[in-house]
């Protein structure tokens, strides 16, 4: 299919790059071994099996997998000049962006699910009689959703920034969004308590509403995933969470596509 959205050859080459790149492979293997070790050790330290997924359990497994594979996923190609030869081929630029995103999402999800499997095996060994249940499935879905969402965020940063700076940009973005969330949480102390100066209160009146508005969108771009924890309590789906997730994912990819479409890939432009 010449005009397909996902380019099969490019997808294959992206996966092969992770498998055969002599520089990248050792870093990835070491990083992944660390995650496996961490998963086994954390299971042996708890006194009872953990059923429900928490944000931490999802984030600390999905984010490193995406970061390992997605650092410089587009920026490296832009900086090295590979794109000029690639774009001389009959490939749409949006196809390039979406193929890289899908490859990153699928590869990181696979790593993440293998990690979950190892955790489950370690859990069954530590707590005989405990078997994977519906919560395990929810964990798997949450981790995969974070891999797909975070891959879109990494793709967006990588299309804008050169080389491997997308990782640093994402870390800074996470840090800033966390600060904004913390400021939004300070509302009762800054606005409604008797402590603090008048100036602080006035400043709080101005800043806190803005932070409250920005907190959720920023967090859902920095840590995009579908939180299924509500399923443990109710049977209904939170459509708001689902729509927020997909709209942020689409927005990130859209920004990446627009940036790539506007990019001049000849080294004459440098």
């Amino acid at each position, binding site marked *: 299919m*010449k*005009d397909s959205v996902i*380019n*099969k*050859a*490019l997808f*294959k*080459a992206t996966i092969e*790059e992770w498998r*055969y*790149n*002599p520089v990248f492979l050792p870093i990835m293997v070491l990083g992944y071994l660390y995650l496996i070790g961490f998963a086994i050790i954390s299971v042996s330290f708890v006194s009872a099996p953990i059923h429900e997924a928490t944000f931490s359990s999802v984030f600390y497994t999905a984010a490193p997998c995406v970061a390992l594979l997605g650092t410089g996923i587009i920026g490296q190609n832009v900086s*090295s*000049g*590979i794109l*000029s*030869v*690639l*774009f*001389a*081929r*009959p*490939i*749409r630029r949006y196809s390039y962006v979406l193929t890289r995103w899908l490859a990153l999402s699928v590869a990181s999800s696979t790593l993440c699910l293998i990690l979950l499997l190892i955790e489950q095996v370690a859990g069954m060994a530590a707590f005989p009689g405990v078997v994977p249940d519906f919560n395990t499935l929810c964990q798997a879905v949450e981790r995969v959703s974070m891999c797909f969402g975070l891959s879109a965020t990494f793709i967006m940063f990588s299309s804008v920034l050169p080389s491997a700076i997308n990782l640093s940009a994402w870390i800074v973005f996470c840090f800033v969004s966390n600060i904004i969330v913390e400021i939004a949480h300070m509302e009762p102390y800054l606005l409604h308590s008797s402590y603090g100066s008048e100036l602080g209160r006035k400043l709080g009146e101005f800043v806190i509403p803005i932070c409250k508005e920005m907190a959720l969108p920023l967090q859902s771009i920095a840590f995009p995933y579908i939180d299924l924890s509500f399923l443990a309590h109710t049977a209904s789906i939170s459509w708001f969470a689902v729509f927020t997730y997909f709209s942020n994912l689409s927005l990130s990819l859209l920004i990446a596509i627009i940036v790539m479409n506007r990019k*001049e*890939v*000849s*080294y*004459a*432009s440098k």
Partner: protein
Amino acid sequence: MSQIDAPGVEASTLLTDSSPMDLNIPGDNRLRGIKIDCVSKTFNPPKLYVKAGQSKHKVVALKEFSLDIVAGEAMGIIGPNGAGKTTLMGCLLGFLRPDSGSILIDGLPPNSLPIKEIIGYLPERLNFDNWMTARRFVTHHHELAYQPENTREQEVEDLLTAVGLDSKKWDLPVGNFSRGMLQRVGLAQALVGKPKYLFLDEPASGVDPGGVLSIRQVLKDLKAKGMTIVINSHQLDQVEKICDRVAFVKGGRLEALEDLVETQSHKREIAVKFVSDLNRMPSKEALQDLAIECQSQLIELNYFVAHFSVNNNDALCQLIKLLVSKDYPVLEVIPQSNRLERYFKEENA
């Protein structure tokens, strides 16, 4: 076996069976070829520099550049560094957006997919995924060009053979390759998909003399089969031997357009070498008189070698005729400068 003999596959077999006349082009035949119409391109300094107040001036890379490249011809693009050649190449391939003007390849903009299917491109600084082998790299581009899977293996091997890459190197990672070997792999990549238009940016850069001859032979074969070739190169002899026409670019403008197929008629320098026989050797004055007679000029006489400046082909013919008729012991006549060098000599002057 010499480097020239090395290619086991005729480059001509890399082309489609159809001649350029068979191209499926919308509209009439006048659309065939490349039409560059009044293209201008300026590079603005990054906003960061402007905000920081640094004196980064905008660079005018192309100024109302117009050129028609006929389908099937080989066009050379020459010019000093910073003349706008690479920018022109970038615009031709759709990598750069001209500020004004238009470029049409077979009546379509260079960015359109049907055009990408019929072009091949070898950049000057081709960067590779270093982990890939030469075979994998060319296979990857064969896949990207949507070439048939059943002939993939054979076609990739044919291409690597055609560019003269040693078959022992095919399965080694390109990260260990020399510049010349990389350039051969790059050329094989450019020829994937049997392109109708081939854009080459310094194709023989860093290639050993044997490789230069080998690449030249490949390009000559392709040209003979009707491929349109655009070469941007500083190697003037290479350009002269392959191209039909040459565009001299300077300051973003088309300064001159030279037809190399036409009978050569331009002022140039030649050296006449005589047999080392003092008894038959003409005097300096005799050679000066002879030069004046055929509207030429004796530049210097150095033992048995006389350097002349001739105005055109007729003058050269007359000079040789006179030298022979006077029974001077002429051994050989050697051109002293490449035809295209004069552009740069004038530039330096």
